[in-house]
């Protein structure tokens, strides 16, 4: 398991590279590598831009039948998300983004979990399994 800070634009790039490495270790196809790295890039940017910075952890996991996967956790202590369904709506943004980060990421991964509390922060956990 690797942890890394997400407090700058540079960190977003570094996290993409960490996730790429993990996806290769999990023997994902090129397409699946691309999907999980793209998801990581969106979630890292969110933690930085909307969450005011936080941390990322990248973990190699395996499921009951021994399938390898990559699990990513992005945590911040930012403002939290008051309306979760709204935030998950394709195209909705509170800022100047495209509003595709959360909705799109959800389609790119196999498991998606969003835990958030207003005034406390946001944690997004995603998992993608190698096929």
């Amino acid at each position, binding site marked *: 398991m690797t942890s890394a800070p997400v407090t700058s*634009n*540079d960190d*977003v*790039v570094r996290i*993409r*590279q960490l996730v*790429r490495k993990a996806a290769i270790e999990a023997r994902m196809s*090129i*397409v699946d*590598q*691309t*999907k999980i*790295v*793209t998801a990581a*890039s*969106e979630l890292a*940017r969110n933690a930085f831009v909307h969450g005011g910075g936080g941390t990322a952890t990248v973990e190699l996991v395996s499921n009951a039948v021994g399938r390898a996967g990559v699990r990513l956790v992005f945590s911040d202590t930012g403002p939290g998300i008051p309306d979760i369904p709204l935030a998950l709506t*394709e*195209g909705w943004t509170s800022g100047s*983004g*495209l509003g*595709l*980060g959360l*909705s*799109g*990421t959800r*389609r*790119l991964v196999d498991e998606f979990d969003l835990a958030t509390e207003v005034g406390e922060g946001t944690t997004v956990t995603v998992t993608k399994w190698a096929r």
Partner: protein
Amino acid sequence: MDRVPILKIGDLLLVSIQIDLQDQTVMVLQEDLADRIVKTGARGVIIDITAVEIVDSFIGRMFSTIASMSRLLDAETVVVGMRPAVAITLVELGLSLGGVRTALDLEKGMQLLSRTAQSTDGS
């Protein structure tokens, strides 16, 4: 922060992205490109993403922004060299890049732009 170089080839500008793009680099590239189109009077912009391993929504938006902006400055943009995995991922992400022209490689991109230039020249 790294800066993406812009090359001039005839009346085209070529942007070949060889680094892992961070958001600041993207913003600066857009501004640099607008300046160079105006300074050089370029008629076309080619963005070569052969080396680009991922395009997220921020980078994807850059292509649309550059395409719209250069159209306003009377230049056509074409994005070349998109990897198959990037194309699939963009679609799942929900980004269709409407308004952005694409070609398979640099050569095809240059052909596309020279044809466009001819037909808008009426020659």
